[in-house]
C-alpha cells in the first residue's frame, strides 16, 4: 500500500514537470505578451518608443523569445517554484500564491455546494429511474438530464439571468455583493445573506449542468447491477424489494459512483471559469481568465500547475477509494 502510494507520487511529480514544460512553452510562444498588450496604445500614439517597450520587456523577463532564452527563464521559474515561490502576478501586482489563496474560497464554496446538491438530487433520481426502467418517470428524468448535460453553461446562465434576474427580478444579475447597499461593520449575518442571495443563480447553473451526468451514471450502473445474478439471489432469499435495491444493489453501484465522485473533489478548488465570468463573481476561475487574456505568465503558470496538481490528486484519491469500497481490489 505505502509502496504503491510512493510510486504514484513519484509518477505524479514526473507528470507535473511535463505539464509545466508544455504550458510554459505555449504561453511564451503566444504572439502578444503582457507588455505588448499594455503598451500597444501608447506605442501607437507615440507616447512610447520601441526602445522603451524593449526595456520593459527585459525588465519583465520577456525579451528573449529564442529557445535557449525560454529554457533559461523556465529553469529560473522552476527553481523558485520548488522553493514555493510562484512569482509576482503581472496583472494583479501581488504574489501569485496570495492571489490564489484569496480567491480560491469563493470558487470552492460555489463548486462544493453544487457538488453536494448534484449528489443528493442526482443519485436518488438515478436509482428511482433504474428501478422503474422505461416508465414515464424514467423517460422524463432522462430527457431532463440530457438537456441539462448538453446545454452550454453560458447559455443556461444567460437564460436564467434573463428570466429570473431581469424579467422577474428575483435574484441579482451579477457580482457577489450589492454595491448600493451599505452594511454596518458588524452586520456579518446580513452580509452573508446578501452574498448567498447573489450565489443562488451561479450555484443553480452548476447544479443543473452536473446533475444530469450524475443521474445518468447512477442509472446506468444501477441497471447493470440490478440484472446481475446476486440480485436474483437476494430476491430468492425473500428480502423485500427495498432491501434488495438499497442494500444489495446500491452497495455495488456505489463502487463506480464513489470512485468517480471522490475523484472530482480536488477539482472543486479549480473554479468554474465561464460561469464565474458570466456572473462576474471574483472567484479563481474569473481571475484566471483575466490573467490569461492579458498574458500574465506567472499567474497562468501558477494557476495551471495548481489545476494539474488537483487532477493528479483526484486520480490518486479515486484509486484509493476504489480499494476502500470494493473488497476485491487490492492496490499493490
Amino acid at each position, binding site marked *: 500500500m505505502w509502496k504503491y502510494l510512493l510510486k504514484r507520487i513519484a509518477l505524479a511529480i514526473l507528470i507535473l514537470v511535463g505539464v509545466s514544460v508544455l504550458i510554459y512553452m505555449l504561453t511564451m510562444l503566444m504572439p502578444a505578451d503582457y507588455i505588448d498588450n499594455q503598451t500597444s496604445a501608447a506605442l501607437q500614439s507615440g507616447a512610447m518608443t520601441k526602445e522603451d517597450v524593449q526595456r520593459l520587456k527585459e525588465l519583465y523577463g520577456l525579451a528573449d523569445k529564442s529557445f535557449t532564452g525560454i529554457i533559461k527563464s523556465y529553469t529560473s521559474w522552476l527553481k523558485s517554484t520548488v522553493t514555493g515561490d510562484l512569482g509576482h502576478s503581472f496583472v494583479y501586482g501581488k504574489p501569485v500564491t496570495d492571489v490564489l489563496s484569496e480567491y480560491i474560497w469563493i470558487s470552492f464554496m460555489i463548486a462544493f455546494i453544487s457538488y453536494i446538491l448534484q449528489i443528493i438530487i442526482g443519485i436518488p433520481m438515478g436509482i428511482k429511474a433504474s428501478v422503474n426502467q422505461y416508465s414515464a418517470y424514467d423517460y422524463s428524468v432522462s430527457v431532463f438530464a440530457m438537456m441539462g448535460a448538453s446545454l452550454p453553461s453560458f447559455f443556461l446562465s444567460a437564460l436564467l439571468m434573463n428570466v429570473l434576474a431581469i424579467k422577474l427580478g428575483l435574484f441579482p444579475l451579477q457580482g457577489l455583493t450589492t454595491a448600493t447597499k451599505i452594511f454596518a461593520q458588524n452586520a456579518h449575518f446580513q452580509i452573508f445573506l446578501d452574498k448567498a442571495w447573489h450565489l443562488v443563480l451561479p450555484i443553480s447553473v452548476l447544479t443543473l449542468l452536473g446533475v444530469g451526468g450524475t443521474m445518468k451514471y447512477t442509472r446506468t450502473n444501477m441497471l447493470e447491477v440490478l440484472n*446481475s*445474478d*446476486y440480485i*436474483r*439471489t*437476494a*430476491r*430468492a*432469499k*425473500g*428480502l*423485500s*424489494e427495498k432491501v434488495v435495491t438499497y442494500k*444489495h444493489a446500491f*452497495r*455495488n453501484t456505489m*463502487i463506480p459512483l464513489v470512485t468517480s465522485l471522490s475523484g472530482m473533489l480536488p477539482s472543486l478548488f479549480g473554479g468554474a471559469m465561464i460561469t464565474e465570468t458570466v456572473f462576474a463573481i471574483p472567484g479563481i476561475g474569473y481571475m484566471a481568465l483575466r490573467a490569461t487574456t492579458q498574458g500574465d505568465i506567472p499567474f497562468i503558470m501558477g494557476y495551471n500547475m495548481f489545476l494539474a496538481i488537483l487532477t493528479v490528486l483526484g486520480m490518486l484519491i479515486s484509486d484509493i477509494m476504489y480499494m476502500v*469500497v*470494493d*473488497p*476485491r481490489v487490492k492496490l499493490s
Partner: protein
Amino acid sequence: MGLLKKLKRGKIEGVDNTTYLTLKDERRISKENNKIIKMYEKEKNRKHVPEEEYLTQMRDPSNVVEFDNLHTYFYTDVGTVKSVNGVSFDIPQGKIVGVVGESGCGKSVTSLSLMQLVQGPTGQIVDGSIRYQDKEGKCYEITKMPKDKMLKIRGKDIAMIFQEPMTSLNPVFKIGDQMDEVVLLHTEGATPESAKARSIEMLNLVGIAAVEKIYNSYPHELSGGMRQRVMIAMALSCNPRLIIADEPTTALDVTIQAQILELLREVKEKINGSIMLITHDLGVIAEMVDFVVVMYAGRIIEKGTVQEIFHNPKHPYTIGLMKSRPGSHNITEDRLYSIKGQVPNPINMPNHCYFYNRCDKAMDICSREYPAMIRFSPTHFAACHLYNEDGSDKSEEEKERR
C-alpha cells in the same frame, strides 16, 4: 417511408423460416404488450388481498408443490414468447423431481414462476396454478399470492440454488453477513449471535473445513465449489420444505460435481425436504432423482419415474436423449447420436407437435394437431401421436394389420 421500414424491421429467425416485422406490426405488438403488461402488473401490485383469495386445496395432500397447466409468457418487442406453455407436474414430499430439457425449453422459467421471480414486467404468469402446501398443511395459490406474503415463503420454505456460483453471491458483502441475513429475516427472535451460530452450523453441515475463516471471507476469495457449498448452506439455513436446484453443478468441474450432488442428497435426508432438480445432464438424473419431467419448447412431453423414463422411454425426443448420452451401452458406435435440427422459433409456435420437424418417426397427423398426454401407467405419461389413448403402440397395430 419504405427505407424507414427496412431500417426498423425486427427480425425473427426461426429454424425453418425467417420473418421480418413491419413497422406497423411492431407498433401493434408494443401497444398490445403495454396493455397486457399493465393489466397483470396492476393485479400484482394490489394491496391488502384477502387471504381467501389465495388459499386453496391440494389435489394430493402428499405433495409439496403442484403445477397445474402453468403458462408463463414473455411479452417481448418481437412477439409473445410462450416460455412455459401448459406445464403440469407434482413434487411429492421428500422426493427429488428432475426436470430435463435443452437450454431455453422453460425449465428455469418454471422454477422462477414458483418463486414469483419471473423477470417482470415483460414476463408474466398468464394462466394455470401453482399450489404450495406449508408445514401446517395450509395450501397457497402462488400465482395469486401478494408480493409481501410471498416474501415469507421465498428463502424460508422454498429455497433456491443457482447455476452460477461465481456470480450468485454479492461480491461486496462477507459470506457470513449474507448468510446471517436469511436467518435474521426468517427466524423469529433471531439475534446476530444466534444467526451467526446457525450460519456456522450450516457451513459445517455442507462440509466446509475452516468455517470461521470462510465466514469472514468475501466471495471472491473462495473457489467455485466452495461458493456453491455456501449457496447450499444458505438455502438450508431456514429448513426449507423444497429446494430448487437450477443446474447446480453445470459450472463446476466433474469431481466437485459429484461431491455437490452427494451433498444435496445428504442434506435432503437430514431436513426431510423435497428437491426440484433442474439439469440437462441425464447422468445426474439417473443418479439422483425419483421422478423425471422431460420438457421441450415450453411443454412437458414425457414424465414418469426414473425407471420408466430410462428403461421404457416413449416419446421420440426422450428416446433420442437416451441414445445421445455417452455410456457403456453404446460404446461400439464411433460417434454419439445427436438429434437433428433445432428447437422451433419460440415466437409463433406452430399449432402441431413442436418436435415434428426433428422427429424421425413423424407421421401425417403430427403436422396437424398437438398430441394429448397419454397415460402408460399411473405415473408415466407422454404426449405423442405414436400411441393410442390406452397406451398401445400404433405402429405395432399397423404391423399386425399387414
